[in-house]
């Protein structure tokens, strides 16, 4: 899941923040599109990355532990519909 914006976006000059613990490691960087900004989060180990817009990021602030647990639930892909119904 490489984000296409990665190839076009501009952000090489932005500082990269690395965060890790024994369970995961991520790199975080602000990237610029022609008309705005996103936060690029990438996982060097899995090769996954995602670029979140400010609204998506704000949406994280109104999640609780249960909804974040749902995200973590399946390490191989997005939340499955069955999980949502459980």
């Amino acid at each position: 899941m490489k984000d296409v914006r990665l190839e076009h976006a501009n952000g090489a000059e932005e500082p990269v923040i690395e965060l890790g613990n024994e369970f995961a490691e991520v790199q975080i960087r602000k990237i610029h599109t022609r008309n705005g900004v996103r936060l690029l989060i990438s996982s060097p180990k899995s090769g996954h990355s995602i670029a979140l817009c400010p609204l998506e990021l704000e949406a994280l602030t109104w999640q609780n532990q249960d909804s974040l647990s749902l995200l973590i639930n399946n390490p191989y892909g997005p939340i499955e519909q069955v999980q949502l119904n459980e």
Partner: protein
Amino acid sequence: MNDLSQMLADVRRGMIPAYVYNDEEVFKLEKEHIFERSWIFLAHESEIPEPGDYVVRRILEDNFIVARDEEGQVRVMFNMCLHRGMQICRAELGNASHFRCSYHGWSYRNDGKLVGLPFHNEAYGGEDGFSKSGQSLLPAPAVETFNGLIFANLDPNAQPFREFLGDFAFYLDFYTRQSGDGVEVRGPQRWRVKSNWKIGAENAAGDSYHTPQTHRSVVEIGLFREPTGAKRKEGALYWCDKGGGTTYKLPPGTFRERLRYVGYTDEMIDRMESSWSLEQKRLISDDGFMISAATLFPSFSLVHNWPKVDANADDDEVVPFITMRVWQPISATETEILSWFIVDKNATEEFKEASYKGYLMCFGSTGMFEQDDVENWVSITSIAGGSMARRLLLNSRMGLTSADKPLNTPLADFHGPGLAYVGYGEFNQRALLKEWADCIERPLDQKEQLAMGEKILASGTKGREK
């Protein structure tokens, strides 16, 4: 092991069969009868101050995650994945909202709740095959905190900690409640020594007699002025419920003057004044004793000393430090020591640094006291393994007459609880080993098993594979 009832009888009269310090069968009894059902210190709350902070600690081979969950509650969870038993947290400390097993990727919240099984539907048919709702990492059977100290017990029917601790709490406050906000810790340092665990525990409980000999060099180089033979014998030894310790006799003075003598600053003394009870303060002001080493049965010890930290300072410029440790048995002949530095949370940074330096000079893997002590203990352990040691009863009767009467009468006006004596004696080592003997003698209970993820059928019987 020779005959069990004979061994226990010998220990109870203060004649210690030397082999108890190096014997596989004795160690097996200790594991089951003592460590699997005693209150064992795991961590201090200040080691996990924020939600998600965790440390990994052990009781024997049982490995636990000690975490502060997102709600701020302290949890002690068995560090074994409910699936195939992989150890979940493998780093010794960290911060995480969820733990993910590295084997098949099950994930758990930091309060232990199982939240994710990859391919739950495909692999198990969802909740029907593996009911994950309500499943959690196994909590430690019993957990309690006192002054921020987190203790756990592997026995679900254990006596409540506060009851077990009894009035030894009076003494624990001197180390861990010097102000209303409590203490913070640094460490632990962790290392292994080829010594039986009991030797160190007994030493800290009451061996004021070894200090002038074993630690002579510490006095000679001017690091610590107190442990001369003449001074140590004026200290009181006390035993109270499940623990006991040693003290030093202080020169004449008030509560404040005596605390200044061991190096506390006035602002720290102010806080002690308001957080200790009248009786606790009178132990210092009226009786003139300052707590030093102590042990709480079975394997938790504390030390309070006041060395000269700055080599160029005047002789009376000392800095006090406090340290606590766990004697974690690895085998009959090896112990893992975990050693923490403790300091009043509200102390100045300057005091904290000087006190920490004093601790490092004296204890921990670099400490001078530590080196001196361990030499002895390794040697005892090694020589206790031979056949001659099976014939030898060590005399641990110091302070008693042949008729079992104490040489000196107990202090009548001592302000601490329990029984206290002035002078040398092995009262505390005997009291500790008497606890040990009682614990070994008490029969074991049946252990219950817990099945994970298996549905309980309506009839109440468990589901079986057809």
